[in-house]
Structure formats: C-alpha cells, structure tokens
C-alpha cells in the first residue's frame, strides 16, 4: 500500500440491494477521502446508507459501481484471499451489538483475530506474545480483571470494550465503528468513545465511525453527512 496516498479514497460509490421485487439504491455516487490517522464520523438518519458504506470500506460487501482505495489500493481488484487478509490485519470492526462469541471468554474473544491470522504451528510459536498483547489491550480498555468472564457476565459497556480490544488486537491501520455507542446509555457511550479515541490514537489508526448521534459525532476530527445515499456535507 502506498504511504503517500490518502488512507481511504472513495469515488463515485454505488450500492443497491434487491429486497424481493423492490430495488433499493442505498448509495448513490458517494465520494470522499480520509487522511491517515484521521478520525471521521459519518452521520445520517436510519437507512441513509451509513452501515453499507462502512461494510464496503471494510470489505464485508461488494461494490456495484465506483472505487474504494485503501492507502492507494483498489479493494475491488483484490483477490478473495487478500480481501480476507486485509480484513484480518488491516481493518478492525466495532459493531453496535458487540457481536462477541458467547462460547469464548473475554480473553479468547480478544484473541480471535490473532488466531484467525495464525496457522496452528505459527500460533504455537507466537502464542505467548499474542496472549501478552491481548492482556495488555484488555488492561488498556479497563478489563484486566474480567479476562476469564463470559460475555453474558458483562454489562453492555464492558462488552463494547471487549469488542474494541478485539478490533485493535491485530493493530489494524483502519478502525471501522458502526454505531459503537448506539446500544449504550449516554454516559457509557461517552466513556466508550473516549476508549476508542485513546486506543486508536495510541496505535495511530485511521478511524471511520458511523453514528446517528450528533453529540458523539462531534468528537471526531471531521463529520460526513449522508442523506438518502448521498453525501450532503463534509
């Protein structure tokens, strides 16, 4: 990836879905750039295409038309294997509903991206280092004492902290957060936002956060306004 190119470059992005007989045109020619280590918030009403935009940037979905470049690399041209590797190493996701695996402990959930990244033999070689990194990450988000707990034993805010630790585990260059405070009360939401900002700043990440809460969005370096699939304000 080119280091001089913008971290994220979106140009003429279109995405539509077919829901039965209805053709839903969600994104209608969205273009913007995000600089390296920038914290950008995307705001808009429900159904405006915020999450779809985030999924497309995070390689979770395919583009219909337009381009997305991550540090100068057109992600549409990446073969499936590289898309998987990019998702694993370069992109960290934080979801509104945390999406922690209930069978795994807090530590195991945090370690999940590391385990996806490593083969069995490689894992056996790097296990200790990876474990130390996960513990450090959990301590950083304030969950050093809850590592053996299951997700169901945690509060909403704690679960989101685990999700943040998991997203940061492989030290990705991009952190994509989809309504990270949407399921929390305002006080906890602010705390989570602080954790997100601090952690990403320490690692030096480019952050794109989707939210419908203007107060939360205000914490970002820049806010993008999405309305009916089009960018209306930058």
């Amino acid at each position, binding site marked *: 990836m080119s280091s001089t190119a913008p971290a994220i470059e979106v140009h003429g992005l279109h995405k539509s879905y077919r829901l039965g007989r209805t053709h839903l045109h969600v994104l209608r020619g969205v273009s913007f750039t995000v600089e390296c280590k920038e914290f950008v918030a995307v705001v808009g009403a429900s159904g405006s295409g915020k999450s779809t935009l985030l999924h497309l940037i995070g390689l*979770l979905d395919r583009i219909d038309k337009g381009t997305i470049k991550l540090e100068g690399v057109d992600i549409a041209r990446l073969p*499936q294997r590289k898309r998987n590797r990019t998702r694993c190493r370069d992109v960290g996701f934080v979801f509104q509903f945390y999406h922690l695996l209930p069978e795994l402990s807090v530590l195991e959930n945090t370690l999940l991206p590391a385990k996806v990244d490593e083969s069995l033999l490689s894992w056996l070689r790097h296990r200790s280092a990876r474990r130390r990194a996960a513990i450090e990450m959990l301590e950083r988000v304030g969950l050093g004492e809850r590592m053996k707990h299951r997700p169901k034993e945690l509060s909403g805010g704690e679960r989101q902290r685990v999700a943040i630790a998991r997203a940061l585990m492989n030290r990705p260059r991009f952190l994509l957060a989809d309504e990270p405070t949407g399921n929390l009360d305002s006080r906890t939401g602010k705390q989570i936002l602080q954790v997100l900002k601090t952690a990403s700043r320490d690692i030096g990440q480019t952050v794109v956060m989707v939210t419908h809460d203007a107060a939360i969005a205000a914490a970002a370096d820049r806010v993008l306004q999405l309305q009916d699939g089009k960018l209306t304000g930058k």
Partner: protein
Amino acid sequence: MYKLTLCLKYLVKRALAYFAMLGVAVCVFLMLSCVAVLTGFVNKVEVAAKGLFGDVVISSASLSGLGDYDALIGAIKKDVPAVEDASPFILTFGILQLPGNDFRRTVQLAGIRLPERARVSDFAKGLFIQQGLRNPTFDPCEPLILRRLGEDYERTFKILKRVAEPPPGGKLTPDRQVLADRLFNATGFQDQAVENVRNANQTARRVAELQAQIQAAEKDGQESKRDLLEVQKAAVERRMILPPDRRVILGLGIAGLSFRTPKGEIIRVIGPGQQIALSMIPLGRQFSYADITPVTRNFTVIDDCSTDVSSIDSEIVYVPFDTLQELCNMGAQRAAGDAGRIIESARCSQIHVKLKDSPGMSRAESLRRVNDVARQIDSVWAVFQKTHPDAARSSVAVETWRQRQSQLISMIENQRTLMVLILGVISGVAIVLIFVILYVIVVQKTRDIGVLKAVGASNLGVAGIFLTYGAAIGMIGSIFGTIAGCALVWNINPVHDWVGRNFGFQIWNRESFMFDQIPNQVEPGTVAWIVTGAIIAGVFGALLPAVIAAMRQPVEALRYE
C-alpha cells in the same frame, strides 16, 4: 488455529453435540460387536478347519476309500518339498452304546494314527489326559491318567458342593436340585473310572481267573455254575482297561456322556477309564447287501478331545486307525491260502497333509501357498494313479482346508456382509442426525459466522470449523462406541450366560453355531476401519451445513436475527 478453538468450544458447550456423539457411539457399538463376532466366527472356522484336517485333504468320493495310501504319502513327501507330514484317516458312521445300559447314540468314527495325527493337525492341543504332549498315544501312562482323573473328580466335587449348598434360610430350586443330582451321579461315574484305572491289573487277573474257572466248569459239565461265572466275568470285564488297540478317545461333548452346567463348566459322566461299545457296518469293500453284518466291539475310553468345534466334539469318537480299518473291512485283502500275498491293499477314507511352517507370510500369501501345494499334490496323485490303478475306485478330490469349508465360510462371510450393509443403513441415521444437529448449530451461529468473516476468516476456514466439528463428533462417538463394543465382545460369553440365567433364553445355540464359546476377539483392523468409517460419516454429515456456513455473506450473517 481458530478452527480448532471454536470446534472444541462448540463440542464442550453445545449439548446438542452429545446426542450426535451418542448416535455415532451406538452405531459403532453395534457395528463393532456384530463384525467382531462374525469375523471371529470366520477365523474360528478357518482355524478349526485347518486344525482338524491339516492344510490339504485328499479324499475319495466312495466309502471304499483310497488304497496304497502309505505309498502315496511317500510320493507326496518326496515330490512336494513344502509338505511337512501326512496321515491317513478313516471316517465312518457307528452307534455308541454303554455296556449294561440302554443308552445308544449315532456317532462318527474317526480312525487316526497316533502320534502321527498330532503332527498334521491340532489334535493334541485339545486332549484332556495327554494335554500338551507332543506325542499322544492310545496308551498313556497310568499315573498321568490317575492324576488328571483325580483333578477332574476334585473339580466336579467342588461344583457339586457349590450347587448343592442351599441359599441361607431356603432350599434348592427344582432346577438346581436336578443339577445337583446329575453332578452327584457324575461323581459316582468318575469315582468308578478312577477305581477302574487304579485296579486295572487286579481286574485283568480276576478276568483271567474267572475264565479259568469257566473252562473248569465247562470241563466238569457244570453248566449252571459256568453261566453264573460268565455273568460274573461280564460284570468284571466292564471294569477292565482294554489293550491299546481297543481304546478310544471321545469327542468332549457327546450328548449323554457329558453335560454343561449353566456356568458353562463341562462335566464328564462317561470318560477316561470307562468302557463303551461301538457298532458299525463294514462298508469298506463292495459286498452284496446280504453280506453286510454289523460288528460291535467294546472299547475303553482312554482320553477325550475338545476341538472347540461343537459339531465335531458332539459327534466324533477317535478309534485306532488299524482297528477301525479292520472293523470297516478296509484292511489289506490277502490271497486265500497265502497270507503273505496281498491281493488288495489296505484303504483309508482321507489323507490329511500338513505343510511346513511359513513364518512371516501374510494371510493371502499363505492361502496362495496352500492352493499351490494342493495343485502340486493333485499332479502327484495323477501320476500315482497311473502306477497304482486300484488306489481309488471313484473320483478323488484334493482340496485345501478352505475349499473344504468354503460353503460354511462363504455363508458366514455373506452374513457378515449383510450385517454390515444393514448396520451401514442404520448408521445413515447417525449421518442424518449429525447433519440436522450441525444445521441447527450453523443457523444458531449465523451471526458468529459473520463475526468470523469480519475478522478475516475465509470461506474454507469457516467450513473447516464445521467439518472438524463433524469429524470430532464421529471420532469421540466412535471412541465411546469402541470402548463399549470391546467391553461387550471381550465379555460376550459371561454376558450371554447372564442373559440366559436371568431372562431364560439363549441367543447362541452351541449346536447350531458349532462353537462352545462365542468368538470374543476384536481385531485392530476391524476397529480401525469402523472408527475411520465413523469419522468419514461425521464429516459427510457436516458437509452440507459446512458449505451453507461457508457461503454465508458476512453482511447478511451480521444482520441475521
């Protein structure tokens, strides 16, 4: 690495998986038990057939049998280097009676040469008195007979004490009372047998004295005294130990001469040291029917033999070869007035051939070798027949032990194949069970699949989780199934006896199935292919759910509710 982690977590945390494992375990248990018993059965038939007949059998289609057999054996040993030894064998039918008793029963009479017989078959292994002796005979030494009879008496007496002991505060059940009576009766016979052997010399002297007295009474014309002495002599003669050519070895299992307790212990009633009478029709040579007169002779039982094949042990009485040959009219025919000139050689029914040991050969190689040797022997016979045209009056077959038992072996093998097919179909249920359970888990885990893909898991990786999961269900289920199956097979005889005692029915009929004991060996090869089959079934059951999981689009999976 995540595949293994999640697979282990799903195994431990998902109770549904236990049902799939249970299904696999039951299928493996059933398959292993049935295949192990039937394979053990085939092996037993093979080992028994080989042990009884040697490796190759030369037999005549007619009762007139084979002549010049010693010359033929010499030619075979000379021309076929793989042959270790060979022995002639006579097989005919007879009636067994107990002197002074109305017991009678049809039996097969086998004329054997000892100790030659022990070199071509496993005959010596199953002997009671001469157990383990390399060169068993029809004339074992008296101390050995007495020691073994004494031990057997002690054993029977202990069983009698156990059976006749009434339960505390109660009395014997009618069945137990009948058994106690039979055991008591058996100890009486056994005691008499010991006395017969111990007093053999005195009895012989007493018979000689009585004979002398009979002759004296005859001389004096005292008919009534002579008749009385004849009766006395007949009674004493029944206790005699007859000379070696008038001794037999009984198959251990002839109904009426021995019986089995509910615990499976064999009790000898008529055994070594006692007399039996054998009647037979001398059919060895062609006569008109009017010439055929049954012959009856008394014999002393000197030993008994268990081959582990119930159909053999319950039927056969082993008689000295030369004795049976004479009684069957198969001995050499000499010219009238010139006893030195043989006009027709002595005959036997079969020749049993043993091959030299071939260590390190696989089962298939060993079978090929036996077939090759049988062909060579057939060639020797073809040449021999030209120089000895009277050796056989009807067709002669040279067969391997397997060919002789092919009908039975193929019948059991077909049964085994059928059983495997039926159980294979039943095992299909386990595959369906794994499919349904994994499908349910895949549906339940849809969002987790989305998360996994979001953190970089590939389609193949996600499929791998569920395929490994299916394989693990198959493996763990098959481990439990194998443990249960081995435990049953290894203890199948006590379990069978327990079922018989407590529920009153016998699944394994010893008469029908030939063997005294249900085969209880588990071959590692059988375990290996059943476990492999279970793992493959697990993977097969997991295949479709794994594909469904792999094809889930991450965005759809994350939005799934």
